[in-house]
């Protein structure tokens, strides 16, 4: 499928081409040529997120992600890294709730050789026995380092209560599991979850579509699919939890249910949260930081899983002002549902439109958006379509959405020296 649109961006007529192709094994390739750049970026999303960690083996997706990069085809661990460095790649590997992702940005001329290295990794990984201990140590280091990141710890605990298992798990798993992993565990996980039928390969930047499609087809045609059952979800906990900790600040995280990205109302919710938190004139920045000086950091954002959405807010402040900060934060979150105003919406639209146009300057940003669109919507949104949605947002449409979707329940987690009062907001 190819979509072509012309649009006016900053007084330039730009032709946007979006390509997608599904190979016989189910793998979907989505791509956007950006001929005005000298670079290209790609990302491979595999349906191997931490929600696939078996019970009792939490952190296995992360361990497999680490071990699979330690040798494949005719490369050992060192050659894998050195070949990618020689190609000047800026690469990443990460595990999220639904996917393990590998990606890189590089000079356009190095796109295909870089892709080859990653496809070799998926098709011919070694999972070398003599790298298992090092991979385990890396996973343990990540686990220990996360303990010192207090904001991350607070939000992780919030996710745990708000989503329940498995979506609220932490990617690092637990120490006992990590210490128990063997090569066989990683290989079994790989064979089950690194499969093409729910994988997405996204490419953006300077490349030729027919050549790219043929190249990927020839590289990955041997990749075979397997059947895997859906994940089983457990009920969330919700409510309030305080983690007692001797720290300079109290860290405050709040969540309430919202709609996922694929919901027809998503952009109404996104607009409302934008009024709350996008930009320096947004409500949270104004009321919590500018008018009261309660904190340095405060924000709220939309978070979307495939089937579920939520709004997550965070702030941190010194112990004696934590209660007031939480009160103002919760007050603003609930006041939002009384509606947004025209001036607020106009500013938000200006910011969102800027962001959409500026995305055209970054192949990595477009690559990420294409993959995300395909995962959530099974199609890609053109910039025209997104601009149309932004233009179509009105106070009436957002306020109607807010009136129809009052926050049913808040989940609150605080970390610091004193427990706070959450009162009427959390049952």
């Amino acid at each position: 499928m190819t979509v072509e649109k012309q649009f006016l961006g900053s007084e330039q007529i730009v032709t946007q081409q979006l390509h997608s192709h599904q190979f016989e094994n189910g793998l979907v390739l989505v791509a956007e040529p950006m001929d005005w750049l000298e670079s290209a970026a790609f990302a491979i999303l595999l349906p191997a997120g931490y929600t696939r960690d078996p019970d009792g083996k939490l952190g296995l997706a992360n361990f497999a992600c680490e071990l699979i990069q330690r040798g494949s085809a005719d490369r050992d661990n060192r050659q894998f890294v050195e070949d990618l460095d020689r190609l000047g790649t800026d690469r990443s590997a990460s595990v999220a709730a639904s996917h393990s992702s590998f990606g890189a940005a590089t000079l356009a001329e190095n796109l295909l050789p870089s892709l080859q290295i990653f496809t070799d990794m998926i098709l011919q990984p070694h999972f070398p026995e003599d790298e298992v201990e090092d991979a385990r140590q890396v996973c343990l280091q990540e686990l220990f380092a996360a303990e010192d990141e207090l904001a991350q710890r607070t939000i992780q605990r919030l996710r745990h209560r708000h989503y329940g298992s498995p979506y609220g798990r932490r990617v690092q798993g637990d120490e006992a599991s990590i210490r128990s992993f063997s090569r066989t565990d990683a290989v079994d996980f790989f064979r089950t979850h690194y499969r093409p039928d729910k994988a997405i390969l996204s490419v953006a930047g300077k490349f030729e579509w027919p050549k790219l499609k043929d190249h990927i087809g020839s590289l990955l045609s041997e990749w075979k699919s397997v059947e895997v059952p859906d994940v089983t979800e457990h009920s969330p906990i919700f409510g309030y939890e305080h983690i007692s900790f001797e720290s300079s600040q109290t860290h405050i995280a709040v969540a309430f249910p919202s709609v996922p990205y694929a919901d027809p109302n998503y952009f109404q919710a996104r607009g409302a949260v934008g009024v709350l938190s996008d930009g320096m004139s947004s409500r949270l920045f104004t009321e919590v930081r500018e008018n009261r000086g309660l904190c340095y950091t405060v924000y709220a954002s939309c978070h979307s899983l495939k089937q579920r959405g939520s709004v997550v807010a965070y702030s941190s402040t010194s112990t004696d002002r934590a209660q007031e900060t939480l009160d103002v934060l919760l007050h603003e979150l609930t006041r939002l549902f009384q509606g947004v105003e025209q001036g607020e919406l106009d500013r938000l639209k200006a910011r969102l439109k800027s962001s959409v146009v500026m995305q055209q300057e970054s192949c990595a940003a477009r690559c990420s958006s294409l993959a995300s669109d395909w995962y959530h919507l099974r199609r890609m949104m053109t910039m025209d379509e997104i601009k149309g949605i932004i233009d179509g947002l009105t106070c009436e449409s957002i306020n109607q959405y807010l009136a129809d979707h009052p926050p049913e329940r808040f989940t609150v987690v605080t970390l610091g020296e004193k427990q706070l009062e959450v009162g009427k907001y959390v049952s």
Partner: protein
Amino acid sequence: MFREKKLANGLEIIAEINPNAYSAAFGFFVKTGSRDETPEIAGVSHFLEHMVFKGTPKRSAADVNRELDEIGSHSNAYTSEEQTVYYATVLQEYQDHAIDLLADIMRPSLRQEDFDTEKKVIIEEIYKYDDQPPFGAHEKCMAKFYGDHALGYSVLGSVESVTGLTPEAMRNYFQQRYSPGNITLVGCGQIDFDRMIAQAEELCGGWQAFDAPRDIQRPAVHHEFELIHKPTATQEYVVQICDGPEATDPDRFANRVLAAIIGDDSGSRFYWEFIDSGLAEYAGLGPYEFQGAGITMTFLSCAPQDTDANLQRLVDVIRKVETDGVTQDEVDSGAEQDNFAIGEAK
């Protein structure tokens, strides 16, 4: 394409024009930072950076924030040892408004009420970093290394020094440092340079010029060791500083490549020794170049029980470079990374 112009009062304007870009970025780069402070006003450069957004005779703080959003800007500011930078990225059609707004806030009112509220924000910012790894180790190491020299001052200042600051002290500092001759207006992207010059003449041409000197003699440095116990931390964090080339030293390029070979994020000697093996969560080495001074900073984080052995490994890696040098392959790999950074920016 590069363009430049200097106004009569000393304000420099430079631009890199790219007609293929979708956006335009503008910034005022002020040559002032924590190294231009005294202990009594430690943190004033950074506090002033916040206050610049708090309004002018023409605009309230709320006006500034509202207008930055109305033009859809992605804007921010930062302060370092040597400079304070204010910038906004906008679509091309908002060039005039963005420059008008940025130029206006460069002459801030510094009102008492705004000052008192913002002081609380600054103190929360200090507490925020207190809670984050490496828990102030970077600032403490700089302070040890430079002793009484201002390069050893924390950019944020301390809770005590910020609490003691007054609008008058900040005004004095502003009047000593924000001379047009000490400021550069920079534009980048799809910009109309002639309009930019005309605007700068109109909006900044009346700024009074004065001397804003900086002592750039190479400071004395000190070699010490300090252990700070933080019982709540899980990992141990090590920061080590040694002398390095200053900002105009021809050796700085060789030092940057050497630092990448030893301590880059990927494929470096530290990477293979510490990161790939999981012996440490992070190990890196990087150069910081100042006027008349330079440092190379090493950073290590790992489990406390592994720190001794890791420090010995760190010494061994450096010793091996000293005795055996580096390979051509290592130098080429660093150069390839630079090529990508340039290609991406085109």
